[in-house]
């Protein structure tokens, strides 16, 4: 057993981290918001970084890496609140021509869960293709063929939404087994982004607690603050372990039970992101309740990701089913 990052993985993580720091700094988020949460130039750069082609074989122009590597990349994207249909374009890289290189922007929706909620499609206006996961397979749908109304005020200002009454059937691009696998991979990459959100919001809150002074001392000196932040760190590290394990087990199912490992990742990362981003707002006090402090963006993105590829509750039920 050698359950830690290899040197190559550390280099990969460092590479995507410095890319995100340079290209998607916090002060660029308002600009991306003004562009409706999508920028084709940035998308091309993400594609060049290999975000979508990461797991494609090198012979097909990919990077030839696995899920254990992809989770590192997606955690960094989450930490920096990078917007766009990142997971879907990554999943589509082996299915739809042009997705891996970023020329074809692919979004998607998971229709396998028992959900009677409204059909809300993310980033629809920017998509070249829509991937629909159903229990009997994955289907390519032409976004222009979808009758949908834009949602005037989406929760996450960087995740625009359309409301559709129904989806066309589309063209089948993967069978039921492949679709089930895509769902596991999607849940794992969403969990990785949630891990990043948990870490990013904890770091923002910790930095503020060191600098903000009240009663003549930094508020981070008070145990009431310390304990909030320590708990945030514990949740983040629990999620990190679960997300890394899910990536490793998807690459090598002999190392564990994929359904269970993915459930643990999605559930713990969702919980960590949800509670850490709330902690981040709380630690910022009144400023945490404003639009200008980005604390709210972590919580809003968390809600988007928590409600994709199975909620924590759904994954808990899947684990219970495996227990007998």
């Amino acid at each position, binding site marked *: 057993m050698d359950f830690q990052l290899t040197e190559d993985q550390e280099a990969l993580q460092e590479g995507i981290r410095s890319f995100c720091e340079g290209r998607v700094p916090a002060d660029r988020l308002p600009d991306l918001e003004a562009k409706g949460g999508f920028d084709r130039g940035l998308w091309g750069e993400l594609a060049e970084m290999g975000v979508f082609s990461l797991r494609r074989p090198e012979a097909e122009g990919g990077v030839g890496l696995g899920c254990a590597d992809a989770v590192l990349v997606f955690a960094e994207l989450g930490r920096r609140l990078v917007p766009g249909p990142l997971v879907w374009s990554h999943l589509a890289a082996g299915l739809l021509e042009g997705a891996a290189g970023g020329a074809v922007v692919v979004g998607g929706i998971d229709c396998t869960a028992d959900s009677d909620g409204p059909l809300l499609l993310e980033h629809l206006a920017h998509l070249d293709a829509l991937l629909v996961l159903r229990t009997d397979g994955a289907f390519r749908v032409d976004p222009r063929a979808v009758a949908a109304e834009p949602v005037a005020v989406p929760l996450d200002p960087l995740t625009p939404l359309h409301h559709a009454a129904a989806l066309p059937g589309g063209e089948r691009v993967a069978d039921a087994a492949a679709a089930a696998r895509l769902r596991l991979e999607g849940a794992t990459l969403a969990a990785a982004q949630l891990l990043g959100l948990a870490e990013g919001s904890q770091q923002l809150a910790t930095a503020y607690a060191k600098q903000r002074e009240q009663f003549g001392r930094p508020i981070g000196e008070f145990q009431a603050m310390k304990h909030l932040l320590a708990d945030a*760190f514990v949740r983040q590290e629990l999620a990190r372990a679960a997300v890394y394990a899910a990536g490793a087990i998807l690459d090598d199912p002999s190392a564990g039970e994929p359904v269970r490992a993915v459930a*643990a990742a999605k559930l713990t990362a969702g919980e960590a992101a949800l509670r850490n981003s709330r902690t981040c707002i709380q630690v910022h006090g009144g400023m945490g309740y404003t639009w200008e402090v980005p604390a709210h963006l972590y919580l809003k993105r968390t809600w988007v990701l928590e409600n994709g590829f199975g909620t924590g509750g759904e994954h808990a039920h899947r684990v219970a089913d495996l227990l007998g």
Partner: protein
Amino acid sequence: MDLRDSQAEARFREELRAWLAEAVPAHGPPPPAHDWPARRAYDTGWQRKLFDAGYAGMSWPAEYGGRDATPNEQLIYSEETARAGAPYVGVNFVGTLHGGPTLIAEGTPEQKQRHLARILRGEEVWCQGFSEPSAGSDLASLKTAAVREGDHYVVSGHKIWCSFAQVADFGELLVRTDPEAPKHKGISWLILPMDAPGIEIRPLPTLAGEGEFSEVFLDAVRVPVENRVGEENDGWRVTNVTLRFERGTAFAGELVLLQRNLAELVDLAKQRGRWADPALREDVGHMAAEIDALWAMVKLSVCRASRTGMPGLEASAIKLHYSELYQRMTELGLRVLGRAALSREDVGGLPSGRFLAEGLKSLNSSIAAGTSQIQRNIVAERILGLPREPRR
């Protein structure tokens, strides 16, 4: 990121498993909790068998008779012994996991010669005399005084939470040798022979009614100066050398027990006709997932430590989550028991005895070995770098 055993690790696991499959049933069931002489004999007898089979002192260097095992092998050892239902380390806890390693790191050649092999063979039992009634989380404020008289220290004071004191041969004792110095600078570490005149041991029953803990009263107890480990007034550093010792890998065993508790909870829910309840299924599935995640966290921490050679600070984070999860799980067990949870004996064909025992025992997990509040301070200050609170 490889989660599987290497070939050498798989071989180690297989050999250990085969040995345990014979040795554990042959050792028989544990004696009643209140029969201390029998418990000492049972635990030290098991330690002797571990020694003969080459599994004693997993982390101890080979030159002191240990196995010098890799952190991964220690993890496998904790996992497999728990899985096989092997006797818990019991009365050998302080000697093998704390006192012995402290002597290895800081003891004189004579001290090592005298104690290490006997601890490893189960011939010598140790207890701990660190905490005092007014020195708990703030351990360095301890008051037990040691006054030098020739080649002896004369020790008077009051120690508490001394596990297995009633059957111990030696105690690791922290005393104040310089009352004038700042509190961390006036402490020394002594080996206390438990048969020395002036020692009185009074049991301190736990809320579960068990007698593991004692208070130890010391009245002008004479301890030879040669029993001091490390320099005079350097005892705080000596203590911290091993304070985090083995905490990381030991959690593997605790997690196996959590998995077993959860499986028993599912059986109980089925027996009570509650397993179809979606709210219960969600809670149980959630806990199973969290146990898996914590397992992965332990592995990540152990592998990181074996690269750096240093036990990581994450042990505090692991302990925090472990104790919370353990308590939540036993609470859920009591919820499933319903009114049977009023009885500490099995009642109406339900295993309330075992569930209550776990429920009460779990209350200790967020207090012993550093309370959860102290662990949060450690995480916040040493990992997140938040400013220390002014303290005296």
